């Protein structure tokens, strides 16, 4: 009996594996009932073609006609694209994904992610001054100042900054050696030259796609 089981076992495993592979490979024929009905009438086909081309045009009209900014936060690259053309490919630094507890607020944290989705350039600033938020002091173990003037830090954001909402900016950095890494608190950092190009090419209203 034991010998029979030992003989059958590899065969059983093989059968299960074959079935698994057949299912996982997507080669199994699709359910015929799942397919939409197949109209053969030429008039129906023309109607379908017309709707298909019309929808394709509608989708094309949604695509930005102007240059847009694309940010890959996993690989830390910022691109400016216009239709299929890449106008700029810049090494960037994006959000670190780390968290920081908010003092005195149980279960509440800051999450230092670069937001993902579609945004727009909302503001263009020259010689921006960083107004340090509470987390910048708390992360360094410092007391949060009561005087607003103590939060001002000029010269650390580079010559330009482009705001895209909720306090997030594309700006410069003193730490160019960290470009290409996820080190920021959510903003997107560039070197001076690339920042200048982005400032020049982007307008208020330019779409920013971040993933």
């Amino acid at each position, binding site marked *: 009996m034991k010998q029979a089981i*030992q003989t059958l*076992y*590899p065969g059983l*495993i*093989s059968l*299960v*594996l*074959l*079935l*698994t*592979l057949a*299912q*996982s*490979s*997507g*080669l199994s024929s*699709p*359910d015929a*009932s*799942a*397919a*939409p*009905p*197949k*109209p*053969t009438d030429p008039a*129906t*086909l023309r109607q*379908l*073609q017309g*709707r*298909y081309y019309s*929808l*394709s045009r509608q*989708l*094309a009209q*949604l*695509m*930005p006609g102007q240059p*847009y900014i*694309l940010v*890959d*936060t*996993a690989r830390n690259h910022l691109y400016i694209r216009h239709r299929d053309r890449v106008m700029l490919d810049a090494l960037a630094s994006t959000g*670190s*994904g*780390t*968290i*920081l507890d908010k003092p005195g607020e149980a279960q509440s944290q800051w999450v230092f992610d670069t937001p*993902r*989705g*579609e945004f727009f350039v909302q503001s263009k600033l020259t010689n921006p001054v960083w107004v340090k938020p509470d987390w910048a002091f708390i*992360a*360094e*173990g410092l007391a949060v100042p009561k005087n607003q003037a103590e939060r001002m830090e000029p010269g650390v954001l580079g010559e330009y900054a482009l705001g895209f909402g909720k306090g997030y900016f594309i700006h410069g950095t003193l730490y160019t050696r960290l470009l290409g890494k*996820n*080190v920021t608190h959510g903003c997107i950092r560039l070197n001076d030259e690339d920042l200048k190009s982005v400032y020049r090419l982007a307008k208020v209203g330019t779409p920013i*796609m*971040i*993933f």
Partner: protein
Amino acid sequence: MTFIPSLFSLILTLIPMTSTVDPSSRPFVDVTDAAALQEATRVLAEEVKVAARPQTYVLIDLPANTILLKGRGIELHRIPIKHWSTSDQHELVMTFRLKERPPVARRKIDPSISPEQEPISLADMPTAYSLQFTPALTITLDSYGQASLWGMAAHFVRQWWRLVIKWWRAIWTEANSAVAPELDLTVSVDDAQSLAWMLTDGMPVLIRRPIH
């Protein structure tokens, strides 16, 4: 334990059979094929609605074996699918919204030690996970690397285990009871991590189904 060598030899023998996807394949719609056109038009109609809003979305193009991240109709990122299977493809006809992105183990900043913490990276992202959607849909993402024999073996064991669970459910569930559709996707390890990174809560997902 005599079955282990035969199990591994079988896996190795079957590997070439499973490489069914041409990674260079592109979406193609035959405009003279009414059924294919009908499906492409259905997806386009959904996409026009989704792309009209300022958001990124995912289009899973099963005939082209591709997962596309898109925004406003523009392709932002492309992931090739190695294999896929589905329990019920006629259910995959609407815009699904991701309930929650895969969990990420985030590192906490401790100001008493140092404000500098190791950031999260793609390597921290999961390589196998399950995604739940509204309306009900489960997408199971699995991955394996061609270079890792152990990774491939683990992938096949997971596939096998899922199949056993499905059989079990099929045996014990009444035929008429409503079961949420399922879509199983296998991609490379890097692509599984990349997808986990780019997904966001509430992200819309569209699926183009094969017709023939």
